[in-house]
């Protein structure tokens, strides 16, 4: 039995230790915001926070998350930070097909938490593990830059 915290709730599972965190999130907990784009840790669509660090959930065997704090997009949806990202992505036009977006939003939040005022180059670096095939990234970069400005101060708070 593996125990961990998912979006602030204590949960446990008897799935095998080799099961992927991604499948546990999607199949057992029916949280659909974490998407599978490649299953090989290359696209970032399945990004979640594991103990506050951005990780590809498709690469994580659940045996390694005993006691960990896991947060998915559903876990941040009610936060002020998410609202700012939501608005900035909308204004900047960062969303097209939407499949990469929850992961991209997680990466954006991770970046801004670490670096509340990133330069363009730092933003590009920060989302370089998240693939988007529709936008060519520039409008996403703009969205994150807008969110940084709008969130003035908010990103430093935990």
């Amino acid at each position, binding site marked *: 039995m593996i125990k961990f915290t998912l979006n602030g709730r204590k949960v446990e599972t008897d799935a095998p230790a080799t099961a992927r965190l991604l499948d546990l999130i999607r199949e057992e907990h029916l949280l659909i915001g974490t998407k599978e784009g490649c299953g090989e840790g290359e*696209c970032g669509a399945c990004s979640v926070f594991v103990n506050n660090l951005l990780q590809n959930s498709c690469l994580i065997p659940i045996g390694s998350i005993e006691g960990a704090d896991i947060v998915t997009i559903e876990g941040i949806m009610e936060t002020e930070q998410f609202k700012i*990202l939501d608005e900035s992505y909308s204004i900047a036009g960062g*969303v097209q097909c*939407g499949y990469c977006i929850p992961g991209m939003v997680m990466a954006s939040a991770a970046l801004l938490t670490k670096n509340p005022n990133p330069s363009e180059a730092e933003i590009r670096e920060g989302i*370089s*593990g998240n693939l988007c*095939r*529709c936008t060519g990234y520039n409008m996403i970069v703009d969205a994150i830059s807008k969110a940084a400005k709008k969130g003035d101060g908010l990103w430093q708070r935990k």
Partner: protein
Amino acid sequence: MDLKDISTSVPRKDHKGKVSGQLAYISDVKVENMVYGVLYRSPIAYGKIISIQLPNLPEGYEAVGAEDIPGPNYVKIIKEDQPIFANDWVNYIGEPILMLVGGDLNILYSLLDEVKIELEEHQAIYTLDKAIKQKSVPGVNMASYEFGESLEIISAIELKAHQIIEEEYDTGYQEHVYLEPQGMLAIYKEDEIVVQGSMQCLYYIKNALLSALACGDDDVRVVQSPTGGGFGGKEDYPSMMACHVAVAAKAVKKSVMLVFDRSEDMVVTTKRHPAKLKYRTAIDKDGNILSMCVEIFLDGGANVGLSSVVLQRALINSAGVYKIPHFHSKGYVLKTNTVPNGAFRGFGAPQSFAGIESHIGHLSKLANIDPIEYKRKYLVKQGDPTITKGNFRDPILMEEMIEDLLNASDYKKKKVEFQTFNQQNQRYKKGIGTSLFLHGCGFTGSGERDHIKATVKLVKSKDGKVILKISNSDMGQGIYTTLSKIVAKELDILYEKVLYPDPDTKEVPDSGPTVASRTTMIVGKLLQRAAKKLKDQWQSGVEQEVVEHYVHREMIPWDEKTFTGDAYPAYSWGVNIVEVEVDTLTGNLKLEKVYANYEVGKVIDDRVMKGQIDGGLAQGLAYGYLEKMTSREGKIQQKSISDYGPPTSLDVVTIQSKVFDNPYADGPYGAKGAGELTLIGGAPAVQAAIEDALQTSFQQIPITPEVIIESLWMREGEEG
């Protein structure tokens, strides 16, 4: 809706569900009594199936194959050459032979490993070069067209010419890498099969299902799920998957889900056709073009699919944006025993533009004239005939767009600066390149009139909401937003009052597929007309419905046999300028600046348009230098995203773009097509910039670091 200008951006209709991840794509859907399907695929490129031995299947697991298909065993596209389940001959590695269905995917995958097949292997054709050599062998030439100036006249011109320049140019595969892999679900009901999934063309799928299931119109229904990117990859391919799940659902009387993982998606789904383009041009002593012959060979893969139509577009664009005296063109789709190639944003045009821009660029060097000035000498103008004896009847703003972009990029100054930089630097070399291009909007020829016959419907509810009833998919390009906006503006009602639910063939008429840069221009115009009609009859408090049908504007009629007439009702235009820095030690390329001007009639939404520009250009630029897919003995070699290498945020730079107004009478508010155009200029501009940096010529894309290094070594060899 009170928008002074239709182009002013409005919020995306589907933003909320997408940003929160709560919008359910097909892989997020679960229905009662649902099982999964996995496909057993051909392990060889060409041969005859002798026997298949299935493992013992546990309870609840079943095999579905050709014998379960109620109708004929082919996927209805154009020709009947693509089996749903191959049961006699197999023509490519990965061709579906049968499907195993059951509740647990892991069990299904281990059962797949136990399927035994006996095959009689035959000599396959693995490469386009081999197919070109064997093109007279029956079955190899799957489609061909020829048109233009007579070859006798061209021979006479060539005899008197100063020089004949011949070039051969190769383009590679391009893989869509839509972020959401392909997925399709057939929901089993006693009296109906509902097929739901990621798709661009609901009625293509419905028609394929009517044929495969040999059923009545009411027995099958197609519903689009939110679609995580298409780019053409979800135009033709989903029809096959829909047949697989629907046949299986009928056979096992359960709902069947088929979702590809990334590697399966990369290896078995359609791609952009690899092409070989041959140019033979007669020039005079000043380097002026006297005549030109073009030959295009497309690698169709194992089935013709949509390839003949792709070839048509490639040929129609074979002279680029130029008026070439005495032009002749000829092209073939050739069969190879490789994964079938199909639709991809641009649909044959990216290959043609890469080739012609490269060739014209090389001719400019011979003439010792700056490429952009040489290109301008041949630029088509309003009223000029097209190479198919059609007419460019609308105003063309290319001169203005070029001039503007030369200024914006400071082109002339950069040319000089880069020359100095390159003289002073051994390792890093800078270059600047241009591309000029167009895109014919909508279906080729009379396709809209003869094949599509689009119908749109608007339904007004009692409480004054207006619902779009059309079969077009939003795959990310933003038509839920732009088409709703057209209707809101025409009716002068709030944008929020216009609804555009995910299309369902039970609810919507066939407004045609979501392809060919036709949706805004053709469907948008029909919706605008429908909205106008509704406005005229508007009555508060009652439900109302209006329907509009496509009306063809007769121009010079298109004749596919002679390949003459107006190939497209309208054209969109573009100019790109790209600056690069090449590291001559590693061959690595850095994009430095990208400038782009476009003319798409009238922009329906600035933000949506910018999304199309940035995303299309990122794909187009990467097609020129980054994205490389190869096939070896019939096997695709790149099975993961990083093996293939689509751009990341670090590969792309800010794109300085501008869109010019030039309203088109038959488009809604003057709009023409925009989605494909933005991809086309990327690769040729990047090639021209690399050539400028290295002062050399290339005859292929992608120009990867390996290609650059090899070219530098060859030059060293020649010089040394």
